């Protein structure tokens, strides 16, 4: 086994879930790394869409923002933002949407708006962005989020984005077109919804991680799926390509930008 960080393992585990040709609505951070890793390894024909309007982009380095010039320069085309949301996402032309959040509950509902009350928040977070509609319209969503009892909570402070609502078919009755959060990739392994109740259960652990670690990191009483799989450690090639990507990104972002004077 090659030594790696949990963040690298999360990224690699998420990239393995993506298939060649899949149309993917990408978010900044870990999802962007995972999607580009998939493109550079087993899924060269993956179609990456960033909400800034870049369709079919092939960035050589990871963008810091959702709208870096690198994404536009390497895209098949760049379209106005309203088109991305209405003609592509809402029209059902996205296979996988990636989401992150500050809080997730046991039914995969997400909060990225406030900690505390809305009107007098303890911490004001960035807010919804594209998430509510990505969650509704992408055929399925993957959530990437490090686990702690503060982030995997029994009750959200604010529901920014609907997952399975109260579970037991509530989402299917709500009229949302997409299937919802099918995988939650976290830093001990993965959770997936129970087929009937849609409660998120432990479905896979990183090789060598114990179930107690998962239970301690989750704020609700975590149940186990009928079969808890093992997620293989990163292969040398996966790690090498991911680390090269990060190294290229660091070098590019460290390049001083000439002031436009």
């Amino acid at each position, binding site marked *: 086994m090659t030594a790696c960080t949990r963040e690298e393992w999360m990224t690699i585990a998420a990239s393995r879930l993506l298939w060649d040709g899949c149309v993917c609505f990408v978010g900044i*951070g870990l999802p962007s790394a995972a999607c580009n890793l998939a493109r550079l390894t087993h899924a060269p024909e993956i179609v990456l869409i960033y909400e*800034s309007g870049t369709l079919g982009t092939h960035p050589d380095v990871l963008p810091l923002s959702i709208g870096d010039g690198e994404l536009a320069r390497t895209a098949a085309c760049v379209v106005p933002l309203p088109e991305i949301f209405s003609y592509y996402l809402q029209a059902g032309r996205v296979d996988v949407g990636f989401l992150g959040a500050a809080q997730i509950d046991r039914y995969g509902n997400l909060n990225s708006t406030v900690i505390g009350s809305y009107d007098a928040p303890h911490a*004001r977070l960035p*807010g919804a962005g594209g998430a509510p509609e990505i969650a509704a319209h992408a055929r399925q969503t993957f959530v990437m989020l490090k686990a702690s009892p503060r982030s995997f909570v029994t009750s959200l402070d604010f529901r920014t984005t609907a997952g399975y609502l109260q579970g037991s078919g509530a989402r299917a009755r*709500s009229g949302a077109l997409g299937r919802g959060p099918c995988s939650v990739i976290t830093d001990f392994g993965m959770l997936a919804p129970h087929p009937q109740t849609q409660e998120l259960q432990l479905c896979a652990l990183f090789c060598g991680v114990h179930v107690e670690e998962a239970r301690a990191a989750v704020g609700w009483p975590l149940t186990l799926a009928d079969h808890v799989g093992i997620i293989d450690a990163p292969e040398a090639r996966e790690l090498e390509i991911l680390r090269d990507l990060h190294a290229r990104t660091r070098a590019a972002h460290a390049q001083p930008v000439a*002031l436009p004077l």
Partner: protein
Amino acid sequence: MSARFLTLADAIAEHVHDGACVALEGFTHLIPFAAGHEIIRQRRHDLHLVRMTPDLIYDQMIGMGCARKLTFSWGGNPGVGSLHRLRDAVEQRWPAPLQLDEHSHAGMAAAYCAGAARLPFGVLRGYLDTDLPAHNPGIRSVQCPYTGETLAAVPAINPDVTILHAQCADRQGNVALHGIVGAAREAALAAKTLVVTVEELVENLAPAMNAILLPHWIVSAVAHCPGGAYPSYAQGHYERDNAFYLHWDAIARDRASFLAWMDAHVLRSVDHRDFLGGLLEDAA
């Protein structure tokens, strides 16, 4: 009516008034920083600011007391973290309380599209089972007259003034922009008044088949302002200064360091060229 060529200071003085609803658009790319700084220099206040992603420019304007209300859909420093001045205004009401009109990107895009078409509201399949409508009375629902389906409705956004930064304008005041355009076109067409800063003035623009061109008769004022999007960027001219966005986190985290930076760089500079010159001296 043809576009008028003004200095940026004159364009802001003439078109941006206290209390107005103002949208400085540009999704990560082509953010009109120079115009935002000029609004700060001219001490405009009580503005209703509209932007999908407030970004550093609204962090600065909010922290300097320009705003009473913010319409937005994602308020972070992209790839970095919080907008500390926006947070301080919401959490501690500093320097003034800030009323929020909060949306999702899809909702705000629909609101701009409706505004551009002069329709009263935008419609989308959105906000489904989220807490946003409970905190924003503008987000409502409407029934499809054909199928009975319930859809989300958002009120049209029609800013008093939209301000954009673009790559190019010609002698008539036609404005061309390319690269990531976000909802710039919709925000421009939704506005009562459109002010544009540009990197470059040219004699004539090439015919713009399928490109984004804002025709001179919807443009109120053009100001030539090279570098006017910095530290955002202008595709084909200069890159986004990602290091500045990272550095802003430390500047804006603290009220005193924020005010000192704004005073030294924005208030004490006479225009955008002077502002950029100051940053160059800092770097030397």
